[in-house]
C-alpha cells in the first residue's frame, strides 16, 4: 500500500506523472467504484461515473493543493459526480411522469446476488428510499467505513449534521425492517 504523500511526491517528479496516477487508480479505483455503484446500482452507470471521476482527478491533480487528503478529494469528486447524475436522472424521470427510485429498485431485483435473499433485498430497498445525499452519507459511513471528519470534508457538511443524518437514516431503515419482518 502506498501512502498518499508518497504518491503525490512521485507525481511531482518529472516524467513520473502517469506512473503516480496509475498508483492512484490501483489504490482507490475499486473503493470509488463500490461507492458509486451503491448510489447508482447499475454497473454501466457506475463505470461511466468512475471513469469521469478519475479523468477529472487526472486533470485536477496539477492544481491539487493538499488542503484535504488525496482520498477524501477523490471521494468528493466521485460523490459529486454520482449525485449530479442522480439529480439529472430524477428530473428526466419526473418529466416522463416516472420515478427514478423504482428504476433503481428494478436494478436491485435484477441483481443475481440478491436471489432468494428477501431480507437483504428489503434492507437495500429501504436504503434506496432515502434522499440521495443522505444515501451518500450512509454509504460513506456504513459501507466505506469513513470517519465523520472525513465525510465532513467530502460532503462539505458539519460533523454534527452528518451524525444526525446518519442516525436518522439508520433508524428509518431499522423501523421499516421491523415492520416488514
Amino acid at each position: 500500500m502506498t501512502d498518499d504523500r508518497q504518491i503525490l511526491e512521485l507525481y511531482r517528479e518529472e516524467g513520473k506523472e502517469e506512473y503516480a496516477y496509475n498508483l492512484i487508480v490501483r489504490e482507490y479505483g475499486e473503493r470509488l467504484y463500490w461507492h458509486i455503484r451503491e448510489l447508482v446500482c447499475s454497473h454501466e452507470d457506475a463505470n461511466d461515473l468512475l471513469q469521469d471521476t478519475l479523468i477529472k482527478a487526472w486533470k485536477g491533480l496539477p492544481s491539487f493543493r493538499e488542503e484535504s487528503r488525496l482520498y477524501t478529494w477523490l471521494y468528493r469528486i466521485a460523490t459529486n459526480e454520482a449525485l449530479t447524475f442522480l439529480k439529472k436522472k430524477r428530473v428526466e424521470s419526473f418529466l416522463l411522469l416516472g420515478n427514478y427510485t423504482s428504476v433503481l429498485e428494478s436494478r436491485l431485483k435484477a441483481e443475481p446476488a440478491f436471489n432468494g435473499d428477501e431480507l437483504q433485498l428489503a434492507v437495500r430497498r429501504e436504503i434506496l428510499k432515502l434522499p440521495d445525499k443522505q444515501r451518500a452519507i450512509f454509504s460513506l459511513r456504513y459501507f466505506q467505513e469513513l470517519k465523520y471528519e472525513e465525510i465532513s470534508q467530502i460532503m462539505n457538511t458539519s460533523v454534527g449534521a452528518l451524525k444526525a443524518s446518519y442516525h436518522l437514516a439508520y433508524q428509518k431503515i431499522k423501523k421499516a425492517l421491523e415492520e416488514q419482518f
Partner: protein
Amino acid sequence: MKNRKEIEEVLQKKFPYKVPDGYFSALEDELAKKIKAKEDYENNSLLTKLKPAFAMVATFAIILGLGYGVMTATKNLGNRSYSAEAENVIGMENVLEEAVADYSLIETIEQIYYLEQADTLSSDMENLEEELINNYLLSELNLVTLLSFE
C-alpha cells in the same frame, strides 16, 4: 427482524453486486486510453485551433462595443445639454410673454405715450442743436469773411 437488534446483522458490508471479470485490472489501461484520446481530441479539435482567432474576434467585438457605447453615450449627453439650453431660452421667452401679458391696456397706452414723448424730445434736441450751430456760425461771421465769398 424483531428478534434482531441492529442492521449490521442483516446488511452485509461486503459488496454483493456483480462486476464483469477482470474489470478492475483492466481499469488502468482503459483509463490511459481514454485520457490519451481525450487529450488528442482536445489538442487537435477545430475549436482548440480556432481558440486564438475566437479570442481575437471577441477582443475586437468588445473594443467596438465599448467604442460604440461611449460614442452613443457622448452623443446623448450633447443632445441633452443642447435641449437643456433650448429649454432655458423657451423658458425666458415665456417669462417675457407673461410679463407683457401682465400689462393692462391703460399701461400699454401709457408706454406708447412715453415713447412718443421721447421721440418729440429728441426732435426738439435736433432743432436746438441746429439753432446753436447757426448762432455760432453767424456770430463768427465778420465783414472780411463775407467779402471773401464774393
